[in-house]
């Protein structure tokens, strides 16, 4: 999302107190643990009401979800449904649930505005299912805001994969 678009969205509240890298790292480490433990309801609470979960197509990693086809372009309603589906009993691609383990590192603040902060981090997510091992490598580019209880939340949660194709991974059925 371009900076000018972010400015147009009404703030949840101002980024007060100012955000530090340490706080962002805490937040991302906490988030990774929730996902690895499949505590998806708790994870969903970290997505702001105007939040989006995005994964660009692998041949166009820098594209805009409004003009290019992504692999995932969920608004808050779709993220909520995704979580409900994954916790339900008929998401066959995640039955049984994959085991995942995430390493989130190299956290940097890219841009800080009055009410949002844009951060990046590297990730490597190992996924184990049906005796196959897949590794998803890339970087996050997130736009974070402060939620009602002053904790950080995602306004935009973007996972940009370095993979050239999803081969042999085949699917992005868990939350990356």
């Amino acid at each position, binding site marked *: 999302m371009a900076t000018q678009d972010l400015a147009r969205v009404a703030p949840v509240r101002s980024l007060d107190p100012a955000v530090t890298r340490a706080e962002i790292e805490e937040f991302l480490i906490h988030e990774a643990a929730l996902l690895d433990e499949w505590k998806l309801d708790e994870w969903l609470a970290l997505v702001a009401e105007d939040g989006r979960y995005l*994964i*660009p*197509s*692998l*041949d*166009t990693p820098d*594209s805009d*979800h*409004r*003009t*290019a*086809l*992504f*692999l*995932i*372009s969920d608004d808050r*309603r*779709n993220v*909520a*449904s*995704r979580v*409900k*589906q994954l916790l*339900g009993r*008929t*998401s*066959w*691609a*995640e*039955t049984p649930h994959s085991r995942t383990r995430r390493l989130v590192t190299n956290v940097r603040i890219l841009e800080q505005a009055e009410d949002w902060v844009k951060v990046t981090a590297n990730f490597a997510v190992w996924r184990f299912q*049906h005796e*196959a091992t897949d590794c998803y490598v890339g970087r996050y580019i997130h736009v974070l805001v402060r939620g009602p209880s002053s904790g950080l939340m995602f306004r935009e949660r973007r996972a940009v994969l370095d993979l*050239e*194709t*999803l*081969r*042999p*991974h*085949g*699917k*992005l*059925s868990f939350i990356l």
Partner: protein
Amino acid sequence: MEKIELKEFIIDDRGNGIFRINRQAFTDPEILDVERREIFDRTWLYAAHVSEVAKPGAFVTRRVGGRPVIVTCDASGKPHVFLNSCPHRGNLVCLEKSGSARALTCFYHAWSFDLSGKLLGVPDAEAYTPAFKREEMGLKSVPRMENYRGMIFISYDAGIESLESYLGNAREYLDYMIDFGGDEVEIVQGAQAYSMKANWKLLVENSMDGYHALSTHHRYFHQYLPDIGMDPAAWAGANRTMGRGVSLGGGHAMVESPQRPTPLTSSAKVELDAIRARLVEKHGPDRAHRIADYTRNLFIFPNLILISLWHTVRTFYPLRPDYMEVDAWALFPKNDSQQLRQKRMDNFLSFLGPGGFATPDDVSGLEGCQRGFATMRELPWSDISRGMGREEPSSQDELQMRAFWRRWDALMHGRRGPSDCADRPERRLAAE
């Protein structure tokens, strides 16, 4: 040419209405060798859409039918498809996935070619004898290339019939897949390149299988649609069997149902009504009705699927009996508003692709079949007999898959003339 014994791979008992596939057809590396030789090397294969190389100098590279190819648009605007291998010593000439260039240069010895394939530069060319003809050393075109309304198909069989004749009855439905927006179509930026650890023929079956939808995609119909305020009754209710499965001849096949509500039909009702009105103006009410009021999964033999609910183009190719590469794109109207484009993409992604709410479950299902085939000796047959006794099989039946398999079986046995693909033969063929 040596032929492996294939007779027992299909049971096609039209009298009793039983159709079975021997699971070895999904697992045997020798079968795959024959498939490459008798099917993929002798049919028309979808390669690209002209919109991907719209401007002079544009190129894309990909694998089609197992070969690396370069699709280009030359300086005069004409599309070409070349084998991506240097005529000199074999290196890939173009290593980029896509781009724009005046010339393509093989880095190995710096031979360069223009986008019509002509050899431009050979360093130290004076070392060659007069018998070395530069004009013979350009990029090698694929044996055949034809463009049907922007869809570029290639064949590695120089003697194959024309593309139009090959498409046969499928042409009419391919036209609907192109005409639906009342406008020219283009491939949307952003490709879905993924894979399945499954035999490619499982994806042929799955891509036009109405029967699996409610169980495999339960979460889409019973969780996602209600979550966005839609009633799944049109999908899950009694009306679901209203569609039909059709053999189009030549192994091409289709399932077709009256148009159904999707996230798009609710989010873009006004725009879609306006497009329908334009279609009536342009094509008349009957044709507009056939274009706009049905949903279709159209299969073009051997490995191309177009699905109208999301307007996807999907092709796939086996690297091993138990592994295929899949490439899928969105084919949308060029001049849709940005809002409608986004609604179409959201609709597409809610169901399709590695991150959609449906495709991953198909991947899992097909991979599960493949793993299950390890029991092949004890459980040798898969059944696709549904609807064989019916006058008009429905979209929940399996005629469309039998149509594929009958053509597959004919080609695997080297019978390249017309095949009898329907349950009730349209014509009896002397050759069969």
